[in-house]
């Protein structure tokens, strides 16, 4: 081990039982839970405090349930391909890893394209984060929260795509020199990706159905 190498990158730390990278990503995800948790808390408090006539169901506000369902399927599928890419590395199959990992990135891109389509439709109808409901001047927070939630989530998806692209194009060279370490990196990327998908599993019913 050189002086620049961090310890416990492959073998688990004797105290935590996990590698340094895995401990780091879980600490990061804990902070993400607090971020999205505070947003969900805000949603509940604002909704409970609003008159019902100013808080529409997503379907009443013009959100498309079929489109939201499609995007949910896309993200669930991307989690499956992500975990299969990691499993492929565990089985020593770099070719299968590339296919599954590429599919994960592609599905993430499809999700963002659909979300961009939804946003453009809303913008073309004059619906922006600051407008009310049912009249544009009414004091409803629905669209403010919708754009905040989905925008922040989309940023997380975009970040995941960029990191995954780097891992696929340049990071995969590590497979030749340190395969276990590379598999560990993919596992960490997979944990992040699953978290982002998990957030959507909560967002979809809250925004589109309830």
């Amino acid at each position, binding site marked *: 081990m050189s002086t620049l190498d961090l310890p416990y990158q492959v073998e688990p730390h004797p105290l935590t039982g*996990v590698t340094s990278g895995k401990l780091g990503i879980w600490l990061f995800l804990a902070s993400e839970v607090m971020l999205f948790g505070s947003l969900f808390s805000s949603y509940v408090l604002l909704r409970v405090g609003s008159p019902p006539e100013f808080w529409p169901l997503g379907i009443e506000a013009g959100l498309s349930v079929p489109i939201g*369902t499609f995007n*949910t399927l896309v993200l669930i599928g991307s989690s499956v391909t992500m975990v299969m890419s990691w*499993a492929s590395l565990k089985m020593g199959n770099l070719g299968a890893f590339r296919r599954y990992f590429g599919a994960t990135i592609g599905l993430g891109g499809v999700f963002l394209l659909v979300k961009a389509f939804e946003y453009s439709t809303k913008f073309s109808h004059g619906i922006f984060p600051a407008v009310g409901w049912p009249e544009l001047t009414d004091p409803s927070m629905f669209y403010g929260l919708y754009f905040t939630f989905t925008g922040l989530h989309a940023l997380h998806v975009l970040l995941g795509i960029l990191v995954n692209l780097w891992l696929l194009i340049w990071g995969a060279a590590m497979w030749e020199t340190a395969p276990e370490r590379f598999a560990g990196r993919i*596992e960490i990327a*997979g944990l992040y990706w699953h978290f982002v998908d998990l957030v959507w*599993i909560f967002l979809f019913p809250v925004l589109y159905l309830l």
Partner: protein
Amino acid sequence: MSLKAFHIFFIILSTLLAVAFGVWAVDDFGRSASRVHLALGVGSFIGSGVLVWYGVWFLRKLKHVSYL
């Protein structure tokens, strides 16, 4: 918690969402008579079954990988 364990957790929640969405969609069909939502509901129930099957298949495939 490893990616394997987190994936199982994710699939369980996805299955619950699929069932809940199916109930919502069928209930909405009763109110709005939207055939699209009825189709989505039926598809969602089928999807929940597929997710359960996939979860079992996944556990068998990765039985040698640790949950940590």
